[in-house]
């Protein structure tokens, strides 16, 4: 949920698929343990053995996935790798304390939940790294704003309508015109897309903001892309969850 000092260099599909597989494994395990209906089953040695061995197998699979990711050059020097390895150790410690695999205080589940947060942050980091490529950003914005009139999208991106039409049809081209602007708008659209429609995103760029002296995000971008990024990215990120402002 934050900007990172050293984004991973690799954005290939294989890496994303591995992180997604880990995310699915952790998310699936977050479902609460369904208590057996009778006390006998709960304390039954066979049931206990099955619960413990199932969780051991799950943990070994997740551990292996995490270690593979941690060894990948893309994450070698990344803070999220460290966080992921620490959550793995926290989880191991909680599992060791929960000998019956009942997790009555939900402490194992809490460790899994934090691990899930870290894995989701890794997925978002891969998205941000991909959008740093202007060609990807252009296609991404064209797709997110697919219901917006093509001329409006072209004006926002500082591109021609022909280019936007190409991007909407998935035709990739080298971005020579306004690459920094397109990348910034891509990163902003990424933050905004789960809060508003495509038209809502367009309106966001044209809404005057009190904190910028009633200037709009588009006006800030027109004036200076780099400076606008410093102001607008925290604004868009802060909109992900309720803040008391």
């Amino acid at each position, binding site marked *: 949920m934050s900007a990172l000092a050293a984004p991973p260099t690799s954005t290939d599909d294989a890496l994303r698929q591995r992180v997604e597989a880990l995310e699915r494994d952790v998310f699936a395990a977050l479902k609460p343990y369904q208590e057996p209906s009778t006390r006998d089953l709960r304390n039954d040695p066979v049931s206990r053995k099955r619960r413990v061995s199932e969780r051991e197998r799950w943990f070994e699979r997740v551990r292996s996935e995490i270690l593979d990711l941690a060894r990948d050059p893309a994450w070698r020097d990344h803070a999220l790798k460290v966080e992921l390895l620490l959550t793995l150790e926290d989880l191991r410690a909680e599992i060791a304390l929960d000998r019956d695999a009942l997790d009555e205080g939900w402490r194992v589940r809490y460790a899994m*939940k934090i691990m899930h947060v870290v894995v989701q942050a890794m997925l978002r980091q891969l998205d941000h790294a991909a959008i740093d490529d202007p060609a990807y950003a252009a296609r991404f914005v064209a797709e997110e704003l697919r219901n917006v009139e093509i001329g409006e999208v072209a004006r926002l991106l500082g591109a021609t309508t022909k280019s936007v039409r190409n991007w909407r049809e998935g035709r990739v081209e080298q971005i020579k015109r306004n690459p920094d602007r397109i990348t910034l708008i891509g990163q902003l659209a990424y933050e905004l897309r789960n809060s508003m429609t495509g038209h809502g995103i367009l309106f966001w760029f044209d809404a005057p903001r*009190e904190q910028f002296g009633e200037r709009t995000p588009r006006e800030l971008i027109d004036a200076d892309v780099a400076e606008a990024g410093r102001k607008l990215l925290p604004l868009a990120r802060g909109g992900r969850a*309720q803040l008391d402002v």
Partner: protein
Amino acid sequence: MPSWTSEPEALAGRWVAYRHVAGGVPPLWTGAGSTTLRQESGRWHREGESLVQYLALSSDGAWAERVRYESIRTEVRRRREHRSLWQLRVSADGIADLSTFDKWEACGLDPAIAVGDHADSQSLASELRRARYRGVLSPSAALDVAGAVNLTLFGARVEHHIEGEPLPEDPVGGVNAPWLPAILLTDRGAPTPFAMERTCYRTAQHRTLAEWRAGRGRRPGRPAGRRPRRSP
């Protein structure tokens, strides 16, 4: 030394609270380290220092926060919003009761801090945390309606997503547990017209505070109490 002259009452209780987030974003903040624990600054915390859960005690209160944050002033923009709105059960003790301007004054604190600039409330939050409060009830700066109150919890929490059932009275782990029962009310919601109509925007005067002052014969700009010492 804290800036209050008399300690805020520490409440224990259960509250139903509301919170909006973007689609796919968990309703509560938690994390593992320096990267995932960074939460953008708000009224009761500075980014990088701590985590805080910002909740409202009414759904309109939550929506007004959204309207104020995004400066949504038109129907066209309001209708283009699609946010998730969560209902949560909070069971906690040690919650500082600064829920009314009267209570701020009774503690010797300037009520304008409740709805004003963040530097003072962030410093007060640090004092409250040092004094072992677990959160604070305070008048809403966004929903400009008498009795509109926000509940802010200090520290990380995680959601226990409830589906197909009402909110349970007690969370797993009991009072002050990290798990808060949470129901997703909508995953494509927009602020209500009422919330937009009664939102106090950042540069506007807070009418409820002004009316409170008028009732007390106080003028704006004349502090009714003390301000915490700001961090450098």
